């Protein structure tokens, strides 16, 4: 399907924001200013954006420990996210959650999640709620290839099938769970999608470094799920450009692997090539977006640095609503 200029520009911008957000964090983390564990989403941008471009704020998503991309794609405010990562009291979660727990329920973002496999069952519940409401809303569970081995993910898939919940399991296969390869940890000879299929779902597969593949695949998936056919699953083959967490020595990578994936499997390069070759957008259009994004990121970092810090009293708030 031919996408409009507006849609193309917005999608590119979203992917670029995620990319530069993460690239900047990668350098900022080395200075020691940012605390805690940070897992960067660089390389997988086409998945988050290709999926979320189809969603409204009433549709729900739940994310993983590698959550920044999903948050941005679902509409979370970028400067506020940056403040959260810096631990400011003005951050998305007032500095209580940090990188691994960014959530924005107003945008249908039910949270990044520090527990691998924690998200999928929650997505099923959100899908049940959507089914009760009967307005064609859906929920999306983003999971990694590692998370697909967790019992909670299996249970969630089966329960979604049994209850015909409008839940979409999006598996981002970046070939690694921490330092372990997909080939070792996922025992099936086939792929993750086939596993999901065995639970009784209709499944799709797509190229997770090509926005157009993700977007077109998700158009079909959403049409199917919004029509009341129950859950579905999609597997996207994608790449993780950085280590599992910041500080990972990555000795498990093959020789030249990182250069190769940056060269051949970069969703931003692929997007640019496709749209300029097809004369859908000019290089200058994209350059303008790039410049705009760089200043957004710069302003976000400056804002986060200057943002107010939480105080000792803040530890005690937000545990309960009333107590």
């Amino acid at each position, binding site marked *: 399907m031919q996408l409009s200029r507006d849609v193309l520009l917005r999608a590119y911008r979203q992917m670029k924001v995620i990319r530069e957000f993460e690239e900047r964090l990668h350098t900022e983390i080395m200075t020691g200013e940012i*605390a*805690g*564990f940070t897992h960067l989403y660089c390389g997988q941008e086409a998945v988050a954006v290709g999926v979320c471009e189809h969603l409204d704020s009433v549709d729900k998503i739940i994310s993983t420990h590698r959550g920044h991309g999903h948050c941005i794609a679902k509409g979370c405010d970028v400067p506020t996210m940056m403040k959260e990562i810096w*631990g*400011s*009291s003005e951050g998305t*979660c007032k*500095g*209580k*959650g*940090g*990188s*691994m*727990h960014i959530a924005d329920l107003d945008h249908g973002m039910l949270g990044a*999640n*520090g*527990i*691998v*496999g924690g998200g999928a069952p929650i997505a099923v519940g959100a899908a049940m709620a959507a089914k009760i409401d009967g307005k064609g809303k859906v929920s999306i569970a983003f999971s990694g290839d*590692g*998370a697909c*081995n*967790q*019992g*909670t993910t299996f249970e969630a898939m089966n329960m979604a099938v049994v209850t015909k919940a409008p839940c979409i399991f999006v598996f981002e296969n970046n070939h*690694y*769970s*921490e*330092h*372990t*390869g*997909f*080939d*070792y*940890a*996922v*025992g099936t000879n086939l792929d993750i999608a086939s596993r999901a299929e065995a639970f009784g779902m209709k499944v799709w597969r797509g190229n997770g470094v090509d926005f157009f593949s993700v977007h077109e695949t998700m158009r079909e998936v959403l049409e199917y799920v919004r029509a009341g056919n129950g859950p579905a699953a999609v597997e996207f083959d994608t790449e993780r450009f950085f280590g599992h967490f910041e500080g990972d*020595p990555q*000795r*498990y*990578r*093959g*020789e030249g*692997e990182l250069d190769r994936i940056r060269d051949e499997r970069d969703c931003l390069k692929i997007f640019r090539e496709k749209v300029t070759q097809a004369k859908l957008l000019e290089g200058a259009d994209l350059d303008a977006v790039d410049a705009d994004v760089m200043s957004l990121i710069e302003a976000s970092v400056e804002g986060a640095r200057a943002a107010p*810090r*939480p*105080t*000792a009293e*803040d*530890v*005690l708030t937000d*545990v309960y609503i009333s107590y």
Partner: protein
Amino acid sequence: MANMMYREAVLRTIFEEMERDENVVMLGEDIVGGMGTAGGPEAIGGIWSTSTGLFGKFGANRVIDTPISESAIIGAANGLALSGKRPIAELMFADFIGVSLDQIWNQMGKFRYMFGGKSKCPAVVRMAYGAGFNAAPQHSQSVHSLLTSMPGLKVVIPSTPADVVGLLRTAIRDDDPVMFLEHKALYATKGEVPDGDYTIPFGHARLTRAGQDVTIVTCGLMVGFCERVADKLAKEGIGCDVIDLRTTSPLDEEAILDSVEVTGRLIVVDESTPRCSIATDIVALVAEKAYSSLKAPSVMVMPPHTPVPFARELESAYLPSTDKIEAAVRKILAWR
């Protein structure tokens, strides 16, 4: 004596026990690190460096790198243990007992009782616990109070490399299930470790500082905090007994009661959440069994009843500190 890091003490003890007894096996996520990758097995070797080299030495049957499946990891440890093996299961973070709790609580902890004393389940579950890394609510918790409340489980919390060796050896050789909690902030700390077949029995606390005025009961990372306070106050002539529990189940009641009978003042310092905790347990013990020795109300230095927050300012406000411990000692001495 050899000087080594806490994490080396873990690795060396596992290594030696695996050499000594072929029934000892280890399993956990990424403990080999690099399986199924171009870098190959041991490209990384466990995120805490507590399993480096084990795979090369003992092979895939005994050093089992698992998918991300905590429920099945602990379940498999149960099955191994009921089948004559002595598994050491690793939970990368103690917080992940949440995923595997049925296998810990309803299975492992209850087999022997439910089966009328016929079974044994010699499993060790090692886990990295504790805050101080801004790792946020799901990667920072201290779960020993929770685990101590569960009958059938033994709970061990070493505070030094020597205690790691002595207690881990006992844990691996023990026929009951043992929860073995290693504080993340201790992994890089160093200390002397006795040579030879050094073991420490469970249920025997260690008096690390002796004084006449106040009893401070603690465990894990907090032991060092309490020692620093005791050393500082000793210069002012204030004497503190610092009791490192080493194991919270079994609990060395005698060591606590003996000390409180002398000092008449009890402070418990701990990193787990305060409600229904090891601290309330010890305060109750003393109220019950040493009431007449008490000269002042007991004091608990603990985090508040909240999750562990992320931001630096929040986490440090949340955690017990040497300042808070010192203030507690002064407060208990100033009572009346």
